[in-house]
């Protein structure tokens, strides 16, 4: 039967090689017609045998190019008269084309094969790419997405590349960044001391290959990659890793690793199928994978290996060092001074057995790669440049962002030479400009579910489809948070969430925020009709949003400004990614995090909110305690322990009862009279219900990061890594009780019975790992109990778990299981971070729902 159809394909189908796929398939089935881009995606008109059209559509779904995403295919019989003689790719119906900028994609298997094939013209070319892979967002300046609007504009295609680009049968048909050895960007090596490179120094093929030799020799190399600079060193050489740590002034935060292939990773971890899939996906994120236990002990990379954090602290504290108690080793114990390469200041995890120096496994990951962690963050090479560097490298390398501490990654050669010259020994530079800074994404797998921790390269700016009810959203701009900032644009039923921008406190990051925002507004032709900001008056994003809304830059007119409560936004972000309809009845949102500005002007962070997209009602929270010294309480976990303890007990009584507990002795050394004044007079001691701070308090009490955290969330992360997972499902370990009380129309969770039990455990020298496990399970149990409690008065069938604290896998899994046992549907994050990186999505959908209901 001969027939004609109009087929509409929606999704990510533009600029990803979709039309050539349609073309090839149509040809294969002998169909006639045309394919073109338009405002809604791709429009196909075909005529041919009904059966073949059917198969054509089936195969379209199956052979969907790697970077495309088909959301919907609709088919309609065409009643008019066709005049097709062949199948052609037509010009875009340009009037309404809204091409989305695709995310950067890791080198595809075909390109990878070509760069390693000596007979291929792409052999060893570090910038090889095709329609299915290569740079996208990172090189795009403007729309439409074609070569002239990218940093590839500087390179004129040679005849050979031009032929491939124009050949619809070719894998490089309309691949905008196509380039080769002859016509494309080049990479070269420099020494940071400006001395010439003498090639005979190394056994090397070329400058890229030389990097491998340098890394193997223990040098630090700054590598200009896809979305920014990295600093690299051999991950198995402790001295090299420590050199990098000290030069970068990055004390403890774990470093990401890159390995040439899965088999290298498997020497250190056992990635699950899901983890492999992520490692090998076009997004090629950093995947946090549980480190293996060693062969005859748990030495290698696993367990918890901790080095002394702040050497300079010891210098000033001298003899205040903790005295180890039996069975309860303090987390931090090492003499001041430098680490020699074979120093063994590892703290034994009660889980792990005694270190045996003789059983050195070859190519062991250097301990200071990820101190205090039980996971390693691995990624696979995602550009030909990285593949070529790692070709001869049989061990992992550290590949951490190339920046000064707290600043964004460098993206420019001149800037990098200036800023990284004191850190790196060598530079591998290239002359393709990085237009947009895009950090590596970070993900983790819990059960079967992917948890996005940092959404950047490979994921942004891919749009997120909004749930039903949001189809006709106005253009909304949501400004995001202060730390881990992202912003979000809404339009056409979709959310475009920016890549991770970072912590706005830093001038360079704030500038990058403004630049990226302007770029997105242009790329997505977005004119905000309303702007959503956090309630916190001091967030830089709030202040900028206010200026934009009031049109203080003088373009256009003022637009409405909506202030969105922090935890409501966390909850709404999770609802949106779980496809909760705009008019759904309220869910119970549990938002646990560091802190966010509450409606009452105090700092919230342990919230049970009954919420829909428009409103929320606070049903329960944690009993607030002061953050003594404000921000300082974030840096010094012991302050939270003290705040918790004096909120629960009389300090003098405690001292009597637990005289010899090292945490009490530690706190006693502090100027408590002074700190008490802060609390009593309300000087820089804001009240907070934060569960993040509760984690800090417990961590410090058992000896983790007691004096100081060197990065945000460190204490909680290390406590999770340390918890004895064998105890997690044993009921007898749920026995730290919390008390509920009712006051001012909400429930409070009071931690004092938990502290009592915890102090008793410490008194009895219960191991850290056991206390950590008990705290996790007890907290999870308490949260579930509170939900059950709230169910009695409120109709609750769905619970949302959100906020940075729910990146803690133990807590997430335990709470989820507990709630599911109660028959409650649990919604958690996957695409969008549970931390503040997801906040802007929530702000945007709340603003949309509020505006649309007016």
């Amino acid at each position, binding site marked *: 039967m001969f027939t004609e159809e109009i087929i509409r394909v929606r999704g990510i189908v533009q600029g990803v090689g979709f039309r050539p796929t349609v073309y090839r398939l149509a040809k294969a089935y002998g169909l006639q017609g045309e394919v073109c881009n338009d405002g809604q995606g791709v429009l196909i008109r075909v005529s041919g045998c009904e059966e073949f059209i059917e198969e054509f559509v089936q195969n379209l779904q199956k052979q969907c190019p790697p970077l495309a995403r088909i959301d919907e295919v609709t088919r309609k019989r065409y009643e008019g008269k066709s005049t097709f003689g062949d199948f052609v790719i037509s010009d875009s119906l340009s009037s309404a084309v809204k091409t989305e900028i695709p995310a950067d994609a890791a080198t595809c298997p075909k390109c990878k094969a070509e760069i390693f094939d000596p007979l291929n013209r792409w052999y060893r070319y570090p910038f090889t790419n095709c329609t299915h892979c290569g740079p996208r967002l990172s090189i795009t300046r403007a729309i439409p997405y074609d070569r002239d609007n990218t940093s590839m504009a500087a390179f004129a295609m040679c005849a050979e590349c031009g032929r491939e680009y124009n050949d619809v049968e070719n894998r490089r048909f309309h691949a905008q960044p196509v380039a080769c050895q002859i016509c494309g960007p080049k990479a070269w090596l420099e020494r940071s001391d400006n001395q010439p490179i003498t090639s005979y120094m190394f056994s090397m093929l070329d400058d890229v290959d030389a990097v491998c030799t340098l890394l193997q020799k223990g040098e630090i190399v700054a590598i200009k990659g896809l979305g920014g600079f990295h600093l690299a060193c051999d991950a198995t050489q402790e001295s090299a890793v420590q050199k990098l740590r000290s030069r970068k002034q990055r004390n403890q935060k774990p470093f990401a690793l890159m390995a040439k292939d899965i088999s290298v990773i498997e020497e250190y971890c056992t990635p699950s199928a899901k983890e492999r899939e992520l490692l090998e996906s076009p997004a090629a994120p950093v995947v946090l994978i549980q480190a293996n236990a060693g062969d005859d002990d748990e030495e290698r990379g696993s367990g918890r290996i901790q080095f002394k954090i702040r050497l300079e602290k010891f210098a000033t504290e001298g003899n205040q060092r903790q005295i180890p108690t039996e069975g309860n080793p303090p987390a931090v114990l090492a003499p001041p001074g430098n680490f020699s390469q074979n120093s063994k200041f590892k703290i034994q995890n009660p889980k792990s057995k005694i270190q045996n120096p003789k059983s050195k496994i070859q190519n062991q990951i250097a301990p200071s790669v990820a101190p205090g962690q039980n996971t390693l963050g691995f990624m696979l090479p995602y550009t030909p440049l990285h593949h070529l560097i790692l070709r001869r490298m049989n061990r992992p390398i550290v590949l951490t962002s190339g920046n000064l501490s707290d*600043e964004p990654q460098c993206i420019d050669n001149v800037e990098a030479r200036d800023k990284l010259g004191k850190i790196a020994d060598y530079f591998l530079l290239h002359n393709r400009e990085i237009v947009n800074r895009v950090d590596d994404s970070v993900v983790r797998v819990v059960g079967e579910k992917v948890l996005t921790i940092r959404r950047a390269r490979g994921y942004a700016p891919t749009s997120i489809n909004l749930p039903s009810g949001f189809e006709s959203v106005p253009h909304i701009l949501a400004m995001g948070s*202060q730390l881990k900032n992202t912003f979000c644009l809404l339009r056409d039923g979709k959310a475009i969430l920016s890549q991770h921008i970072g912590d706005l406190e*830093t001038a360079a990051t704030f500038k990058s925020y403004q630049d990226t925002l302007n770029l997105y507004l242009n790329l997505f032709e977005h004119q905000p009709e309303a702007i959503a900001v956090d309630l916190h*008056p001091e967030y830089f994003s709030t202040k900028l949003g206010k200026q934009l809304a009031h049109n203080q830059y003088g373009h256009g007119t003022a637009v409405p400004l909506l202030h969105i409560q922090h935890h409501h936004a966390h909850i709404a972000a999770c609802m949106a990614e779980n496809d909760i309809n705009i008019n759904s009845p309220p869910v119970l949102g549990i938002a646990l995090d560091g802190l966010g500005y509450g409606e009452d002007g105090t700092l919230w962070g342990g919230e049970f909110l009954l919420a829909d997209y428009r409103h929320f009602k606070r049903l329960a929270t944690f009993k607030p305690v002061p953050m003594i010294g404000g921000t300082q309480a*974030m840096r010094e976990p012991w302050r939270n322990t003290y705040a918790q303890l004096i909120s629960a007990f009389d300090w003098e009584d405690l001292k009597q009862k637990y005289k010899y507990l090292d945490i009490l002795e530690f706190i006693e050394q502090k100027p408590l009279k002074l*700190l008490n*004044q802060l609390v009593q007079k309300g000087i*820089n001691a804001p009240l907070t219900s934060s569960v993040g701070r509760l984690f800090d308090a417990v961590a410090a009490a058992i000896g983790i990061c007691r004096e100081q955290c060197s990065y945000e969330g460190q204490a909680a992360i290390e406590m999770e890594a340390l918890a004895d997972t064998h105890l997690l499902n044993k009921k007898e370990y749920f026995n730290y009780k919390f008390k509920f009380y009712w006051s001012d129309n909400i429930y409070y969770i009071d931690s004092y019975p938990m502290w009592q039990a915890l102090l008793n455990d410490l008194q009895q020298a219960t191991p850290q790992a056991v206390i950590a496990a008990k705290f996790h399970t007890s907290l999870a149990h308490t949260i579930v109990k509170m939900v059950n409690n709230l169910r009695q008065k409120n109709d609750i069938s769905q619970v949302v778990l959100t906020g940075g604290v729910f990146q803690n896998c133990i807590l997430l899994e335990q709470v989820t299981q507990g709630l599911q046992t109660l028959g409650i549907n649990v919604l958690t994050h996957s695409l969008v971070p549970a931390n503040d990186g997801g906040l802007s999505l929530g702000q945007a959908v709340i603003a949309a729902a509020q505006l649309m209901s007016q």
Partner: protein
Amino acid sequence: LAHGSGGKAMRDLIDDIFIQNFDNPTLSQLEDQARFDLASFIKQGDRLAFTTDSYVVDPLFFPGGDIGTLAINGTVNDLAMSGAKPLYLSCSVILEEGLPVETLRRVAQSMQAAAQKAGVQVVTGDTKVVSRGAADKLFINTSGIGIIPTGVNISAHNIQPGDAIIINGELGNHGTAILIARGELALDTDIESDCQPLNNLVETILNVCPEVHAMRDATRGGLATVLNEFAFSSGVGIRLDEQSIPVREEVKGVCELLGLDPLYLANEGKFVVVVGRENADTVVSAMKSHPAGKDACIIGEVIPSPSGVVFLKTAFGAERIVDMLVGEQLPRIC
């Protein structure tokens, strides 16, 4: 002192305290207003500067000063920041019922001492007693006039990229001294308020460099607030160098304990001078010759962009934004 005892004896007592202390020819006329000879003003310059400020502080007495010294120096300094030579002040006092006469006398004495040091006269004044709780012990308002010399033109709008930012000494001493005095904070330090008149030092600066672009005293809100105001009103950026900003070790220590940022702490004798880079060294060395400027130094520079933004280059080389606070220092880290 008692409220409502409008009796002549009481008023006389209070007035006496001030008149005795502020003894000068104008005040001694005991008229309801001070009267000046314009001709003597005109000799000193071509513009009159006029300012007012109210002073409330808890506690009234603190290491390095009291509410009286604050009330004189604050207004003197506000005048001096325009380049004016401060001449005459008014003084209006609101007392809470029950304030000991002795307290008032001490304050009046230190006001007189401060006025003398600054070379100004308090020429008119008023006192009111209000009932208990209607005021907190003692409030003082002072207004002042001064003469701006011909040719001096100091304004935030003059600030230009390339200019140097100069401070006359250590930051945060006043704010810290007050905190310690107020909180009975169990701290053993000798941190004193830096409360001092700046008019003489300003004169010294203008003598060597009449073309000062801008000056402002870093009182409430500290250095951070002043520089943000400058950056905003002149559409420039300001980059500070953390290592060159003078802060006493003790102040740093207290700030670290309390979680406060010295850049936001109040000062009562510190001011920012913005001058062209070419004049900066001359100005700094002139300042150093003066006791109120002995620790003067360049702490940063004006840059063309980003407009309206102040940032701080830290010892590590990273640059942190020093923002204008909407409210108090409040954690914003999640």
